[in-house]
């Protein structure tokens, strides 16, 4: 029988086909690279795209950014799936260090959260006091979109409700929409619903589908949003690339790295303010 032999040949050819593109993804021959687990706010605001080329040019190290919520990013690092974490939830970061997953945390930069809502501002929140604004939203039962994803922004939101003296569990209703998604999708939802939302300024400035949303509350010092960076402790996960990871952290907090962060602007507005060492004036 000649035919079956040809079929076998075809299958063999296919096997080769399958193997050859796989071979085109070299795992070990790559230049030095590290995995950085970070937040959707740093990725979606375009910051990494702006600063990473300078670091790669200087050190030859490729930084692979996996953008997750702060909680997820820390979890990925706990499992050993990242070399460095750059996130924004001070309490969670301190816990990460306390649990022994990192030896130290370094300040990198900060920006702030803003309360965004429809320009009409039916609940009358406009001003500089976040707790007063949240109380008005809850009283009016005005639509509010929550990230609901254990991100740094989500934890800042929950903290603000608490500071406003509002027991979310008790007053939560149809008006409070927990979307469980990143900053961008949550903003898309807020726009669609004409809802209020707490956003980090970086993502807000980079966000393109604003519709009639505008900043209503800003400048409250309780809305301060600091970012920290940590090298995963190689004692926990021996696969952590210590040399390259530390090089990235050293560069981030160096004058060069800090200047690069400060230089990132959208429409003339600075998104992140360097905070390593002495804090510079915005």
């Amino acid at each position, binding site marked *: 029988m000649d035919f079956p032999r040809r079929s076998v040949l075809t299958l063999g050819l296919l096997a080769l086909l399958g193997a050859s*593109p796989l071979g085109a993804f070299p795992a070990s021959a790559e230049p030095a690279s590290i995995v950085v687990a970070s937040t959707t706010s740093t990725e*979606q605001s375009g910051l990494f795209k702006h600063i990473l080329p300078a670091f790669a040019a200087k050190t030859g190290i490729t930084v*692979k*950014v*996996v*953008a997750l919520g702060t909680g997820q990013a820390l979890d990925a690092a706990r499992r050993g799936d990242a070399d460095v974490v750059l996130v924004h939830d001070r309490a969670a970061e301190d816990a990460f260090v306390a649990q022994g997953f990192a030896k130290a945390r370094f300040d990198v930069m900060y920006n702030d959260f803003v309360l965004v809502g429809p320009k009409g501002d039916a609940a009358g929140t406009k001003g500089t006091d976040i707790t007063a604004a949240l109380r008005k939203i809850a009283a009016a039962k005005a639509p509010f979109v929550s990230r609901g994803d254990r991100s740094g922004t989500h934890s800042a939101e929950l903290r603000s409700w608490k500071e406003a003296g509002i027991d979310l569990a008790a007053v939560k209703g149809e008006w409070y929409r927990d979307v469980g998604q990143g900053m961008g999708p949550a903003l898309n939802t807020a726009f669609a619903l004409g809802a209020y939302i707490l956003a980090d300024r970086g993502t807000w400035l*980079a966000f393109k589908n*604003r519709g009639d949303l505008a900043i209503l509350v800003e400048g409250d010092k309780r809305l301060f949003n600091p970012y920290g960076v940590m090298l995963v402790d190689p004692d926990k996960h021996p*696969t952590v690339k210590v040399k390259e990871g530390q090089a990235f952290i050293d560069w981030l907090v160096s004058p060069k790295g800090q200047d690069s962060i400060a230089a990132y602007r959208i429409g003339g507005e600075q998104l992140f303010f360097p905070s390593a060492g002495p804090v510079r004036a915005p």
Partner: protein
Amino acid sequence: MTETLHETFARLATLDRDVVAIAWLSLRVSLSAVAIGLVLGIPLGAFLAVTRFRGRSALVGLLNAFMGLPPVIVGLVLYLVLSRSGPFGSLGLLFTPGAMVAAQAVLATPLVAALTRQVIADAEDHLGEQLRSLGLSAPRRAGVLIHDTRFSLVTTALAAFGRAISEIGAVLVVGGNIDGHTRTMTTAISLETQKGDLSLALALGLVLIGLVVTVNAVAALLRGHAARAYG
């Protein structure tokens, strides 16, 4: 809406080399996954079509159900398996294109096997008795039937390719959507949607559809050519 569409076409003209690289990665990952799916799935499907054994129909039912395996679950399970803390963590495959190939291969294989089984079983209805009367063993009968139905099996391959290249749940979880490394067409479209850049997302969507149509057209041409040459 019309404004977005207008912008979309304007953006199409300005798509840069990044998009080409992303499309190329999507194509390589999905074609690799389909190739693996064909190598594993065709023999498995053919074997199930030409043999009779206890539990075979249960296996076939399971295979048919696995055609609908949710990509995000496949992604999650593979994530846990490939994680540094997982059983295959030492491979260092997580957040690499290799992990995405593995995930899509898991999705493609049952689809190929189930569709192949159906195609071969139909052919077996016509030819099975004749082949058995020639005294051919099960593997040889399977071989003859695979060869006989090879043009129908191209459609199976295309279905698997369609499933692989259009899924996002699995590649997003195991690939991590890393810029310049594991960003595929679907994860890029999702990211741009999240950033609120809807016209760019739509433009990328048109590129993806174009890619799928092109692959299908090439397959149809090859099949037509082969059918004329080898009938």
